[in-house]
């Protein structure tokens, strides 16, 4: 069985360490290894975690999304070796905290593509902390929110209620696939945060197409609804789309009706494609394919027409 990995991202000062620190106090988090990445020469965050044992690993002096990607893979492999050798207490989950300026996409790519890592670990979810007082801050912050499965809006105790409500609306437009919850002092329900269903794109009706805005650095989202789609045609279309426009597509997530009893869960973070998950049944009565796209220069109608054309072309080829 693969060990789940939770990636915690979020802008500088948005409350990542506070969140993880609080999580580690929870009895259900006892068997968790933590990998902390910091930019500075002297790491501080791992001391703030208050549980510096052999399962807490510091990746300092560089950012995990650029210079330290190999180090992250090495640390994950090393943790496995030491666990198997009994050199560290057993752990059943790994939490990776990125730096505040990190682009989470390359980290996701490492987790999904490194041969050893992907054989032993499974990326469970990406959690982004969003500063409840300052909101999204810069393109890094927007990207972190766009690729997340769960959004934790921090500092709920001091955030202005009106501003907070505006931030919640902004996040729902930006990333309709991620559920957001408010948190004060890092308090958040463990079951919600680590629920596997975090990757299920429910409630898409709230994710109406949202145009680009200054506040989201030209990142917008749209939802495609289609009927049954040929799986092979979709695979070709997706790989071609990511090759051509991968830099502009931050996220694709959704259910695909490929004709089986249940949908296929599709989840991509830029070029990083999660292994598709074939579900046994639909979560509700709506059996349409529905895909959320988050990125720049998105045109829902062109995306839909293109995918439909690939699907149409697959029929005579298949017959």
């Amino acid at each position, binding site marked *: 069985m693969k060990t789940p990995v939770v990636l915690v991202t979020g802008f500088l000062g948005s409350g990542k360490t506070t969140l993880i620190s609080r999580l580690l106090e929870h009895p259900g988090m006892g068997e968790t290894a933590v990998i902390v990445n910091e930019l500075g020469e002297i790491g501080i965050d791992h001391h703030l975690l208050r549980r510096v044992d052999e399962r807490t690993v510091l990746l300092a002096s560089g950012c995990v999304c650029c210079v330290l990607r190999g180090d992250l893979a090495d640390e994950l492999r090393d943790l496995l070796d030491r666990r198997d050798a009994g050199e560290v207490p057993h752990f059943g989950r790994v939490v990776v905290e990125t730096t505040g300026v990190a682009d989470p996409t390359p980290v996701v790519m490492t987790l999904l593509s490194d041969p050893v890592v992907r054989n032993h670990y499974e990326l469970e979810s990406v959690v982004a902390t969003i500063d409840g007082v300052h909101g999204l801050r810069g393109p890094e912050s927007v990207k972190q929110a766009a690729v997340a499965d769960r959004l934790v809006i921090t500092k709920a105790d001091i955030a202005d209620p009106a501003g907070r409500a505006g931030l919640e609306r902004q996040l729902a437009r930006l990333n309709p696939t991620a559920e957001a919850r408010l948190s004060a002092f890092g308090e958040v329900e463990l079951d919600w945060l680590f629920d596997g269903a975090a990757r299920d794109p429910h409630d898409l009706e709230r994710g109406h197409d949202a145009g680009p805005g200054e506040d989201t650095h030209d990142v917008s989202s749209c939802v495609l609804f289609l009927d049954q789609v040929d799986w*092979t045609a979709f695979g*070709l279309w997706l790989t*071609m789309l990511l090759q051509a426009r991968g830099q502009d597509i931050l996220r694709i997530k959704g259910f695909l009706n490929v004709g089986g009893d249940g949908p296929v869960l599709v989840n991509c973070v830029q070029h990083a494609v999660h292994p598709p998950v074939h579900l046994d049944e639909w979560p509700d009565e709506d059996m349409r394919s529905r895909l959320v796209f988050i990125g720049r220069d998105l*045109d829902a109608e*062109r*995306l839909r027409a*293109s995918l439909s054309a690939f699907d149409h*072309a*697959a029929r005579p*080829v298949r017959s």
Partner: protein
Amino acid sequence: MFRAALLDRVLGHFGLSLHDWAGAVYVLRDRKGSSAVVQDIGAVWSEAERLLGRRLDPLDASLVAELSR
């Protein structure tokens, strides 16, 4: 193979063709006779881009019209 046939149709729109070589690899050819060996279908788009010297966009209106026929 269904996937290769569909791929060949898409590539054909851009003047490329895909040939199965002994069931092991694929050979991608353009109309000028240039070719590239593709180890797996996942790499076909980057090789096709390299041969053509431009991006192959699935949202291209003429491709969408061609595939919709």
